[in-house]
């Protein structure tokens, strides 16, 4: 088990950070989040074509770079740090993983290269209204139709669902099992609409399936394990994204209090501020350790004493608690200005808030962690 990053991984991180500092500073995030698509297509094209971000963990056989979840999570962490609005998480992290895990070789050949190139944006329609990502509660159904399938039901919180041209959907098979399906986003019988997202830097959609024709990825047995692995990979990457955001908030708040004077002295000199900053550092470091460990476990679980679902859920739960707590502290350290629209803290605050719920709450994931825990 490794507890450090390789030189290549560090170089990849630094390259991404430089790129995002340069091409997606907060001024750009603010501009892009007001646009209809919610992301900058040119930045996404450069990230995909020049940095290979869309292809990181997609196998080389399918046009990808063949790296692991660790590298994918590094990209997520840097994206979270920069609050990058992009289809990275919806398309590469979620949809591509589902296809790679469930699809036949032919399906992967057909679908993954497009995603890997960044040219195809895919979205994973799995969560359902109210019940979220709990697969036991999925009610959307698939029925066989002349050697193909037709889907019915409502999916919600579909990340990058409006931007996607390719949809991967989870639906219940006639025998109650779980199937993963692919279909073009403009299929007849698939209606989608944007949801009003609290976090304007991350777009969600609702999708209504009404007999939309779809391909079953792999066989009827492939869906359940593929979904489980996809959720784990997504949770690990979300944990990475959240610790990236939390660290940025922590650093910015520290810089702010270090610059500001009150009562004739630096705000950073007040003991209460110092101790809060120390606690924030502690919490972020602990959450980072969890995110990194879970990512390493996703790539190589040989030397890990807990199964991936336990570690992924642990990482998601602790990162989302930490992100939110850090955001609350960061607003407070800024004082009134931290509550304004013009101060950037609120952008990360909203991402933290939305990330608490995305993929399931911390309480959900703590329960899931224990269900998989090796005691």
């Amino acid at each position, binding site marked *: 088990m490794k507890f450090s990053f390789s030189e290549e991984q560090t170089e990849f991180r630094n390259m991404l950070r430089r790129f995002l500092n340069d091409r997606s500073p907060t001024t750009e995030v603010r501009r892009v989040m007001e646009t209809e698509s919610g992301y900058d297509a040119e930045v996404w094209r450069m990230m995909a074509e020049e940095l290979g971000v869309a292809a990181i963990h997609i196998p080389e056989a399918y046009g990808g770079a063949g790296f692991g979840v660790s590298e994918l999570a590094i990209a997520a962490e840097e994206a979270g740090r920069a609050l990058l609005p992009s289809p990275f998480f919806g398309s590469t992290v979620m949809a591509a993983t589902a296809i790679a895990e469930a699809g036949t070789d032919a399906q992967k050949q057909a679908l993954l290269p497009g995603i890997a190139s960044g040219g195809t944006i895919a979205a994973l329609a799995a969560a359902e209204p*109210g019940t979220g*990502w709990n697969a036991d509660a999925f009610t959307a159904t698939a029925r066989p139709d002349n050697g193909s399938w037709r889907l019915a039901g409502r999916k919600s919180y579909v990340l990058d669902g409006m931007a996607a041209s390719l949809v991967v959907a989870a639906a219940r098979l006639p025998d109650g099992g779980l199937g993963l399906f692919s279909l073009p986003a403009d299929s007849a019988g698939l209606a989608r609409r944007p949801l009003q997202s609290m976090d304007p830097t991350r777009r969600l959609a609702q999708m209504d399936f009404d007999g939309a024709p779809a391909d079953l990825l792999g066989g009827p047995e492939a869906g359940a394990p593929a979904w489980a692995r996809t959720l784990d990979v997504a949770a690990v990457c979300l944990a990475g994204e959240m610790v990236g955001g939390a660290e940025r908030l922590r650093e910015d708040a520290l810089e702010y209090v270090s610059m500001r004077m009150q*009562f*004739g002295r630096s705000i950073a000199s007040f003991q209460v501020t110092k101790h809060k900053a120390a606690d924030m550092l502690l919490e972020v470091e602990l959450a980072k350790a969890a995110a990194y460990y879970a990512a390493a476990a996703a790539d190589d679980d040989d030397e890990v004493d807990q199964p991936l679902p336990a570690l992924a859920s642990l990482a998601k739960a602790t990162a989302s608690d930490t992100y939110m707590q850090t955001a609350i502290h960061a*607003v*407070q350290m800024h004082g009134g200005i931290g*509550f304004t629209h013009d101060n950037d803290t609120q952008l990360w605050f909203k991402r933290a808030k939305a990330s608490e719920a995305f993929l399931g*709450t911390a*309480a959900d994931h703590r329960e899931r962690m224990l269900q998989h825990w090796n005691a």
Partner: protein
Amino acid sequence: MTDFTEDDIRAQVRAWLTDNWDPERGLVEWRNMLIESGWGVPHWPEEWHGRGLPVGMAPVVEEEFDKGGAVGVAKMGIRTLAAATILEHGTDLHKQRFLRGILTGEETWCQLFSEPGSGSDLAGAVTRADFQGGKWVINGQKVWNTSAHHADFGLLLARTDWDAVKHQGLSYFLLDMRQPGVEVHQLRQMNGHASFNQVFFTDAVVEPEYQIGGLGEGWKVATTTLMHERRGADGVRRYATGSDRPGRIYEEERAEVATVMAPYVWYPQRTGRADLLIERAKAAGRWDDPAVRQEVAKALTLARTAEWTARRAREAQQLGLPQGPEGSIGKLAASIVARACARAHTMIAGPDAMLTGEDDGTGGVVAEILVSTPAISIAGGTDEIQRNIISERILSMPKEARHDTDRPFRDVPRNQVG
């Protein structure tokens, strides 16, 4: 006048209202009648629109007005702080010029104390007032100025002496907001509302006779304003809606209420809305989840105990008992309540906590809670300031060493503001 009994007063008010009250009058016309009669502010001096009654009689008179549905003088917003400050420290000119417009509601006010460079440290103001060509010339910037975007006048704290120590270099002005040197920008919050403004002064002018209090006595005058602000903090919510009766005067009053209350429409949400938790948990199908129930119980417990604590404080006050610590912790308790509620609402909402507006299943109410609660631990004195106050004033712990009151203000380290 003070020899009248409460019953006498009630009888007099009723008689006067019987003779004069008519809901089809114009609001300003009616309020001018109140001013002439003295019934609008009966506890003010007779020479200044009142009847010189004891302060305790004012609620009695108000009760009689309420019974008959009679509208009173304009009482909402910063104007009450202006009136209190002018009554206590103003010259006859100030009183003559401003009190009537305050009471009729024709002229509105804003407070110009906080600055981007100070925040909790009001006495650290660096907006400057320089006496040039027989006038005070104002340059600088203020912030968190509720209603400044429609105010006619401002209560301005500005620095007139940079060689004096911090609190002694400030003076206080009654500033005309309708002049070229004053620019107001609304400040949008993270919850989308715009309750505050920034105000920029570029060679704005105050005639010398509109300084209030002596030169260098600005902080003393400001403490009057601040004391009334603290007292009135609860008042805002009590006047949150106008009457829904028919009649011209009510229509005009509703319009006034809407304007004054606009900055506060999200205030219920920033408290965290403990009242919604159980109904939301049931609606979301999470009322049987033991982990959710624990969080809801914690939030309800905090909300109720904070409420009971406030009632203990009120009852002690009513009984004339010595004020215990329970009277000083409400602001800090409100922060904790709001955060606990936000946690519980997030857990209840589950995935819907990502949504807002029409999509969050509550018409955006829960989303507004989640992005409004951070304000409650900042606005009106941060949690940190509250803890300083509690530890120093209630628990008599040593004050923080000061590094800004022992030297000329120009030598005090401070923020550079652009």
